[in-house]
């Protein structure tokens, strides 16, 4: 396969018809608002940029994975969203998403969106919470049909 073939294949992906979904996107819009998703996510330019941008998320992840994330978000943590817990030498604990790291420093965005840059020598504790996320599970608080509605809403954006 040469580069032209690869390019043609990639272009063809955009013409695949969208997946047919069971939920109602309009009801999903209301659930999105009531569940406070915008406190951590941006959708169509609105919200807070702590978690992944949800605009076009269905095209990137697919409906099944979005639904699975609502039920158990710790199993589908996306690349670049490693949760970190630090304790400074002054005894202050800060949890947040790792933005960057090298041998001597680490940069973290806390759950209010504030950026912290630390020399590692300033920290008494630096934990990488590999299978943890601050996103709650909606498996117990939303019904199956409400989850479908939420997926349908995100897929429509």
């Amino acid at each position, binding site marked *: 396969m040469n580069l032209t073939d690869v390019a043609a294949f990639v272009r063809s992906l955009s013409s695949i018809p969208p997946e047919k979904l069971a939920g109602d996107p309009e009801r999903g819009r209301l659930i999105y608002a009531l569940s406070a998703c915008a406190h951590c996510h941006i959708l169509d330019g609105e919200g807070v940029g702590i978690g992944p941008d949800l605009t076009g998320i269905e095209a990137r992840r697919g409906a099944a994975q979005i639904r699975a994330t609502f039920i158990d978000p710790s199993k589908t943590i996306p690349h670049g969203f490693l949760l970190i817990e630090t304790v400074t030498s002054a005894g202050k604990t800060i949890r947040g998403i790792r933005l960057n790291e*090298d041998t001597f420093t680490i940069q973290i965005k806390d759950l209010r969106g504030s950026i912290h840059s630390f020399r590692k020598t300033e920290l008494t504790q630096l934990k990488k919470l590999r299978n943890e996320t601050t996103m709650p599970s909606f498996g117990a608080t939303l019904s199956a049909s409400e989850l479908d509605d939420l997926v349908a809403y995100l897929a429509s954006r």
Partner: protein
Amino acid sequence: MRWLICIALCSCLEAQVPFDRILHADTEPGNWLTYSRDLGGKRYSPLSEINRQNVRHLKVKWAHQFSNGNNEVSPIVIDGIIYITGPNTAAALDAHTGRDLWHWSRSIPTDYRSVGFGLTSRGPAVLDDKLFIATLDGFLVALDLKSGAQRWLTQVLDYKLGYSMTMAPLAIEDKVVVGISGGEAGIRGFIDAYDAKTGKRAWRFWTIPAPGEPGHETWTGDSWKTGGGPTWVTGAYDPELKLVYWGVGNPGPDWNGDLRHGDNLYTCSLVALDAGTGKLRWYFQFTPHETHDWDSAHVPVLFDAEVNGAKRKLVAVANRNAFYYVLDRVSGKFVVGRAYAKQTWAKRLDAAGKPIPAGNADPSPEGRVVWPNANGATVWYSTSFSPETGYIYVSVREIASRYFKRETPYKPGTEFLGGGEDELSADDAWGAIRALQAATGEQRWEFKLHSPPWAGVMATAGGLVFSGSDEGNFYALDAGTGKPLWDFQTGGSIDANPIAFNVEGHECVAIAADRVLFAFSLE
């Protein structure tokens, strides 16, 4: 003005580097006259102005922008002038400012293909009034030190067969020794020496023996013709023994050993060659019948130490296969060896230094997870030996891969791999600088790195160890304890070896970080 006068005087009076100067490099610690500073591969600077007490005050003196990225150059420094190379380029820089004094380049042919490595050049060599550069398209070029004008050019190899040159040449006595790249292209490797005055080839040592030569029996059928054995990292030289020590890379195809049964000499070996004739004096094979791409392409470190009460001439190699070896450099006999990083392919080394296979480590069609990964527990960059601590400092990579075996047809000038690897998750990989007792390989300290490094190490008489990280940190550790003392974020991945030199009597250290050569000093 004072600088200009100095440079002019240096150009007129000092732009001569007879071999005697390189031989006695320790008498002029402010210069860096050969790839590893000394012929023994130690990459140790006797300068001590920058030391444990004041290194925290180190600042950028200047930055020089290269015309390409991913620079791996280890510069030469002669009396206030720095000589650098890039892919088919060379330049002289003012050590006070980093400004170009002259520049040379040679076009890379449009049909040139880099098979298995990037477009890079790890540095020049110097002898008498010439600077020597090995080009990607296979030429050894001698330039006039003062002007950069081409004095002579000799074709070493045919790049259309997959050969190339990326290493810094090694000037010894009246010759220039070069090795070649191409271990992923089914080449047959060699080491060459050329007359420094004329460019005429003095000798060639083939790393894969031909029919009738000793060692040929370690290959099956015609596999020797495409057996690899590249020699792409600069070697070392013992002027008393008149021996050249050079590492030999992986066999071809890399990951499918079914096509080349046997030990596959002299791949993954250290060879000791007579400097006058290129004849093999001895060899030591680290990884017989190697199937993970663990080239033994390393700068060997020559040092003397007491072993069991007797003073011995030794050579040490921290190998890509995760074992550290000490050999007798007169005879090539194994002295001691031990793993210095995680490895899962060998149970241990036997009394002769031969690995005892752990089993189930060969690549397979389904894939097998093995430590280390194909780039190894260390790779081409340099280790450093400090005569003050007696330690060898190794930049270590802790990372595994899933190795696959595939069928592979040979087509000249293209990939001849026989498989591949998938590296395990980046967050499960890490790196370290480890200090090993040179004579025994016992670990004395470790400084952990965020990720597997691509930078070499330089120890200094200031009690420091300098190195770089993949995330761009250039840093100094306490050579005795590994405690971090200073670091600087360069903004570019560091895939190079540090050097140290003097400018107007004051110490500088320099490192290439992606597109920039940085020089640091206390002033």
